[in-house]
């Protein structure tokens, strides 16, 4: 948005279609949720205003807190693994030729597989009776069974998420690396910089923009994860892999608890906005500082 732009309020006509469609599919539903969240709805004709009762109840509900902490742990683990791994993979990518094209397609493929199919693929890969991974691990002497062991379920989910989304980080970082001029590498070489120094002082500063986007996307999306655990573990064993979205979906569509589910939704949305904003603001602040 850096160009010299003319001031013209008629430009609103251009954004009108977008406004209408987002109002229809975003604002109306969101208002419905906010409206429900302050009412006790017995049926559609009998409802009472209860103020912040549902919010208080949700925030003190031990099952919500557990799901929230699990969610935090999962997102933290996902970010800690996928971001560095993605950068290393991007640095290994060739830039030209058929091999580069094939690698791009291979890396992008997991991003375009329906999320429940990702779950299915890992299910039949990790099962201890028919899965390549599960059977191999058991043959090697590990009693691996992700449907019964919470730790195994967690590791399988993490492995699935890494399989599914590291490519996104890698592709973003790869695109960022293509913008580093060759002259910078030559200059660093003349100065006798080590590989690590080249990475730290030449590449990393230029990757900052795409990495901010990568962290934001992975943070938001891992916080909303629903489908893969739903297919792979069903939230189990017990509740050990029930994350926020799944808990909410059970409440809203399974049990039809309108009020509490709505309050849950509002809190959930606000948390994601808060995390994204905190991260974005801290990046911006450090940018101004340097």
């Amino acid at each position: 948005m850096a160009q010299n732009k003319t001031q013209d309020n008629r430009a609103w006509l251009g954004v009108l279609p977008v406004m209408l469609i987002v109002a229809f599919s975003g604002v109306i539903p969101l208002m419905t949720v906010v409206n429900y969240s302050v009412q006790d709805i017995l049926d559609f004709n009998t409802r009472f205003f209860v103020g912040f009762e549902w919010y208080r109840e949700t925030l003190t509900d031990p099952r919500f807190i557990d799901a929230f902490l699990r969610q935090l742990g999962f997102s933290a683990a996902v970010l800690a693994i996928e971001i560095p791994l993605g950068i290393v993979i991007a640095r290994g990518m060739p830039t030209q030729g058929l091999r580069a094209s094939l690698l791009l397609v291979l890396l992008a493929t997991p991003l375009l597989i329906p999320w429940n199919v990702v779950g299915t693929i890992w299910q039949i890969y990790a099962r201890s009776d028919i899965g390549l991974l599960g059977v191999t691990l058991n043959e090697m002497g590990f009693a691996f069974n992700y449907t019964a062991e919470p730790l195994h379920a967690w590791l399988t989910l993490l492995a699935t998420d890494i399989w599914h989304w590291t490519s996104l980080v890698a592709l973003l970082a790869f695109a960022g690396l293509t913008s580093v001029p060759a002259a910078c590498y030559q200059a660093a070489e003349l100065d006798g910089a080590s590989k690590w120094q080249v990475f730290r002082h030449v590449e990393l500063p230029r990757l900052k923009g795409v990495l901010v986007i990568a962290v934001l996307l992975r943070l938001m999306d891992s916080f909303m994860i629903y489908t893969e655990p739903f297919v792979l573990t069903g939230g189990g064993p017990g509740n050990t892999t029930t994350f926020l979205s799944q808990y909410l979906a059970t409440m809203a569509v399974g049990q039809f608890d309108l009020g509490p589910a709505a309050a849950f939704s509002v809190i959930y949305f606000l948390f994601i906005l808060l995390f994204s904003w905190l991260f974005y603001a801290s990046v911006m602040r450090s940018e101004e500082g340097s």
Partner: protein
Amino acid sequence: MSRRSRLSRWVLAGYCVYLILPLYWLLTLALRSNADIAGVFELVPSNPTLANFAEILTNPVWYQGFVNSISYVLLNTLISVSVALPAAYVFSRYRFLGDRQLFFWLLTNRMAPPAVFLLPFFQLYSSIGLFDTPLAVALAHCLFTVPLSVWILEGFMSGVPTEIDDMARIDGHSFWFFFTRIFLPINRSAIGVTVFFCFMFSWVELLLARTLTGSEAKPIVVVMTRTVSASGMDWGVLAAASVFTVLPGILVVWFVRQHLVKGFALGRV
């Protein structure tokens, strides 16, 4: 290139193996009968069969699922791109009252967890009689794909110099002519990347698609989850259906692979 250190190449190679193994396993299971899968464990199928694929192509429940999915994905892509084009154009060319606020408000929709919208979507689309139609799913997905499309297109269009607009005006072309015959062709790679991301979101999403459809417009991803619970575990057919859902993605990536890196380079995904 000097940046390709030995370590990073080994990691890349290892990661490729990590990516391919589950896909390979999916393919081998799709080529085996259910009794075979349950009976023996083998790395290479000894009696490969195409029966699972035949089942999907001949059973209307399965192939209708594909038709339903593809119809809402296409609808969604069409709606998203056509409303996002004018919006992205004015965002990239004009300042107007509330433009920044509007732009960021649009992006916050990308951050909304789909689970939050389950209930209101269900009620909204039921009350206007769209429940269980591809259009309902397409419109619901618009909440995520429209902001994304505006964001991607704006990034590309801002890179097109405004002199082009002025030249067209001086040459006496109407705005409509300029926009459709000059401006859009310049931005075709941007449109390609946008289509890719709309497709990517709409094709892979399960939660909303499942909630907004009943028996009529049931998408393939839902057919898969329901078949699993109904008839026990038919791993072979499930694997074959999975293979079919992976293919369109690979095709789309192959066609837009050149533009993809440019799109990622703008950081607009």
